[in-house]
């Protein structure tokens, strides 16, 4: 038989946890503040801020997109729909030949299918897709989860700057186009 029974020891652990929750400031503040010591937050009133890298929703920087279809092809569940056309832009200098440019007609991501794997953001060669940690885009109808290019463009202002890297890293911190 141990000196202190295991049951009592266990009760001590829960009791200490209760005290730490009720009095997060310790003995300095004897007024119980359970909401300050709690591990959870009162969600609709208080919001947690996910990490800047968190994969919440994909934002589209439309100017950079050339409708190259790489993201749509690499997507594991093919939930990106892209349509585009080519047009001739006026030459940059007088007397030059007209330039061929790609225009984006349609860029839809179906979030009811998306697995949030991030492959599309990774393969994009022109830096047109970015992750935003925003997570509140649930809908009552499943069809509304199809975000078109205007809606995806609106997410762009929620995209945080890329974080600096830990020392010893050889990666360069990229910039988010604004």
């Amino acid at each position, binding site marked *: 038989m141990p000196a202190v029974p295991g*049951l009592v020891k266990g009760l001590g652990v829960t009791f200490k946890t209760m005290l730490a929750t009720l009095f997060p400031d310790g003995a300095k503040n004897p007024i119980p503040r359970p909401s300050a010591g709690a591990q959870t937050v009162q969600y609709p009133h208080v919001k947690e801020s996910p990490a800047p*890298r968190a994969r919440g929703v994909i934002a589209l920087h439309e100017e950079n997109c050339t409708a190259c279809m790489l993201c749509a092809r690499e997507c*594991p569940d093919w939930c990106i729909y892209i349509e585009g056309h080519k047009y001739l832009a006026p030459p940059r200098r007088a007397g030059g030949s007209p330039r061929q440019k790609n225009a984006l007609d349609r860029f839809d991501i179906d979030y009811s299918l998306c697995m949030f794997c*991030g*492959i599309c953001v990774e393969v994009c060669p022109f830096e047109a897709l970015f992750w935003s940690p925003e997570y509140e885009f649930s809908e009552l109808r499943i069809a509304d989860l199809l975000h078109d290019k205007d809606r995806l463009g609106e997410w762009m202002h929620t995209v945080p700057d890329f974080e600096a890297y830990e020392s010893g890293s050889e990666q360069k911190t990229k910039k988010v186009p604004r």
Partner: protein
Amino acid sequence: MSVSEQEQLAYIAAQAADARVNLELETEDGMTLNMGPQHPATHGTLRLVAKLDGEQVVAAEPIMGYMHRGYEKLTEVRTYPQVTTLINRIDWLGSFANEVPFILAAEQLMEVEAPPRAQWIRTILFEMSRIANISLYIGDMAVQIGATTPIFFAFRDREHILNQIERVTGGRFHPNFDRIGGLKDDLPAGWIEETKAVIKKMQTFCDQMDDLVAGNEIFQARTRGIGVIPAEVALSYGLSGANLRGSGVDWDLRRDQPCGLVYDQCDWKVWTHPDGDSYSRFWVRLQETREACNIVDQLLDNIPSGPIMAKVPRIIKVPAGEAYVATENPLGEMGYYVVSKGDLTPFRVKIRSASFSNMSICPWVLKGVFVPDIIAILGSLYFILGDIDR
């Protein structure tokens, strides 16, 4: 062709007999008890058909496949970078650990090696997913015995680890961070300091669980001597991981086969327990969480600097060949047998998941136990349905 009513009834009866419904109240030669597919103790959709004689189990048979998602087949039609996002979902509590053996197998075929910095970060994240996985198990085991507090403690402290994983990978549960030849990205600034603080919290958590669960007399009474698996039986059923070490077999792939992971760079110990009962399996896992904290703490101190990605082509085509790589995942030995024919996609991937093999001992170990002990034994064997059904 019309089907007569008689034929219809016969068909329904055959189906019902097949599914063993309405057998519960048959008492002539014992009673059949269906545990699951929806039962809290089965961690998902495992069905356990137990034949009872009073309170004692005469025979028990696990029936799996209710959550089969066909990953082995799906990998044949997905490219290598896409496969990692699928296999994240096999053992969903320790997702990062699932990616590593597959990536290592593909790297072996392509004959590339990840740079040292990538190997260290891989090992750190691997052990962190082990902590996240097993800390939840510790709380879950207690909740199956009937204590409700530890599970809340486990969820509370696991969240710290998941937040750190999210800060690096962007995903709490499905990191999809490992790439052939390295990692997707490097660590963000300040991460090492924060993780050190979190590891301290996890060590406190382990101490708390030691006092709260392992030392508790009621818990010990419910688990000691229950579901004893001798070492030779455990070996013959192909058990792996903490279930095997709980039976006293000193076997750990991290130490014996550290292909591509840097476990030899730190000082740690493989824990075993000679008893082989439910308590010893729980105890081994508790010590392993401590040891994993210890490993992460040591590795964080001296991460080498350098690149995180080896030179690999943009479009990954794995040369023809076969490779099998297994690592010591939170649940046991997890291996991928990758066959490539030189295409963008694997030709065949055989997934050896730990829980599936660990479940095979169920009929043996459940024979002769009492009904409440089924829960303790299933809890201590620790399986995840995604890992069984794939």
